[in-house]
């Protein structure tokens, strides 16, 4: 077995928790049941690694097989690292007819044209997602399997999720993705986070939505009987309604953070030095929580945050992004701009 393969296997075992390792090895199906049983998972990691290396050498497994193992582990546990989302734009006429085989072939050809030493592995997951693992090399060096890029794409949808991509290699990947999915452009969707499923649900609108209505629901209209009367029941119900309109109802996607980059003028009548400055006041506001939409919804429905919810916060769900650049309203940059009304 080559040194690089050994190194890769070692890193893989080190990163994987032992109980997951057992399940993944069973799924991998490259070891005989007898070999699987011979691995003692109670021993320290380096002993497990050594056993696995011997077994792999016995079976004559190569780098290709080990990457398979890694891919399986990542598909099972996608919530690691940070996933960035991209949106494909301007589909061509035959964009909807791209199927898996064609996509596989096209993607590999396009990427290999741009970069010679690159190892690509494509696998279709049960939930219609296409998982792509790319190990990059350079013109002279072999592909580096220790730092692979992962790409998840749902065929016929305009969204792509990417993990662990350097800015140098980004244009290459973007170009081959655009060409192989028969689109004309791709742009950053400004949504990122560690939970792949949450990001996907948010972009593809796979959560329970609540639509604005002026009528209270018939249940809320009934007068509460009984000796305990809430004097402000109406205000409370409307706060809850507005909160769920802005942040969804039921279980919402588990987004961890929202970042606002402010490039607006400083406005404070009591501080003239800052207000009269021509340059914008630059700062970054970051909200983070284990489930940020849930937190915002609670704040709004409990009356801690004022309702109706400011468009700055409600556009997380509305536009499906969690990174915003806020500039003063200028006719030139109308698409990204919103009046800062905080």
């Amino acid at each position: 077995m080559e040194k690089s393969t050994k190194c890769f296997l070692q890193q893989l075992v080190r990163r994987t928790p032992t109980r997951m390792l057992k399940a993944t090895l069973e799924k991998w199906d490259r070891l005989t049941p007898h070999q699987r049983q011979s691995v003692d998972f109670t021993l320290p990691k380096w002993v497990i690694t050594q056993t696995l290396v011997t077994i792999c050498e016995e079976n004559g497994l190569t780098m290709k097989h080990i990457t398979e193992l890694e891919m399986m582990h990542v598909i099972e546990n996608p919530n690691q690292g940070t996933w960035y989302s991209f949106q494909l734009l301007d589909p061509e006429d035959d964009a909807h007819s791209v199927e898996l085989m064609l996509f596989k072939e096209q993607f590999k050809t396009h990427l290999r044209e741009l970069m010679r030493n690159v190892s690509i592995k494509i696998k279709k997951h049960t939930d219609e997602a296409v998982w792509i693992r790319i190990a990059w090399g350079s013109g002279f060096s072999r592909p580096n399997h220790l730092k692979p890029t992962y790409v998840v794409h749902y065929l016929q949808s305009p969204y792509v999720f990417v993990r662990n991509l350097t800015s140098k290699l980004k244009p290459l990947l973007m170009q081959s993705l655009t060409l192989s999915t028969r689109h004309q452009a791709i742009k950053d969707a400004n949504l990122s986070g560690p939970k792949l499923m949450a990001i996907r649900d948010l972009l593809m609108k796979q959560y329970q939505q609540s639509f604005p209505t002026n009528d209270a629901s018939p249940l809320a209209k009934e007068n509460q009987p009984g000796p305990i009367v809430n004097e402000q029941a109406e205000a409370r119900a409307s706060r809850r309604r507005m909160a769920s309109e802005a942040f969804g109802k039921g279980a919402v996607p588990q987004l961890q953070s929202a970042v606002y980059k402010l490039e607006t003028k400083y406005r404070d009548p009591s501080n003239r030095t800052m207000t009269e400055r021509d340059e914008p006041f630059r700062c970054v506001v970051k909200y983070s929580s284990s489930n940020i939409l849930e937190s915002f919804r609670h704040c709004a429905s409990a009356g801690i945050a004022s309702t109706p919810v400011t468009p700055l916060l409600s556009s997380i769900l509305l536009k499906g992004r969690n990174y915003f650049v806020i500039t003063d309203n200028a006719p030139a940059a109308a698409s990204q701009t919103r009046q800062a009304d905080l």
Partner: protein
Amino acid sequence: MALLKPFSKLPGLNTAIILLVENEEKLQLRLGDALLKETSVVVNVRLAKSLPLPVNERRPRIDLVVFIINLTSEPSFQSAEASLKYLDPGYFLGKVCFMVTKARNASVPTRRLDAVRMLAASLHCPLLFAEDQTPEGVFGAADRLLTILKGAAGLVPFTTPLYLSHLTRCTLPPDVDQPSFD
């Protein structure tokens, strides 16, 4: 902006009506349930987040207004302070009371506790400390509130709310100067 008036309506027979004002809406419902366990008088509980209340002609006369303040949160105190000005001055003759929760929490700044005591003392209102974590604590708090409520509603012979107010007026001012850890 509608002032809440204590004497604009006739009282009901053997009935006491209490208004629980709490910004966080956490304790009020449990406290209301505990208050309803009382059988000797008919207790009616009304809940609010803050004052003023929406205009409602059919609202009965409210005998006691309780402001529940969570000492660990500044907005809770500020909301109670802001709500006070929507009460008719007549209420401050023994028909308002403050209830403080989480006073034993380590994250409470002593200055806030002093501010609440100062507020209660300057308005001549009783100040109660309650435990909101356990059911026993809530029952204890409800029990003490009932004692004041019966007096405020005029259901205790030979006692009036004004009398209660006078009692607190005699005892409270020196209390303000004491350090809060006594």
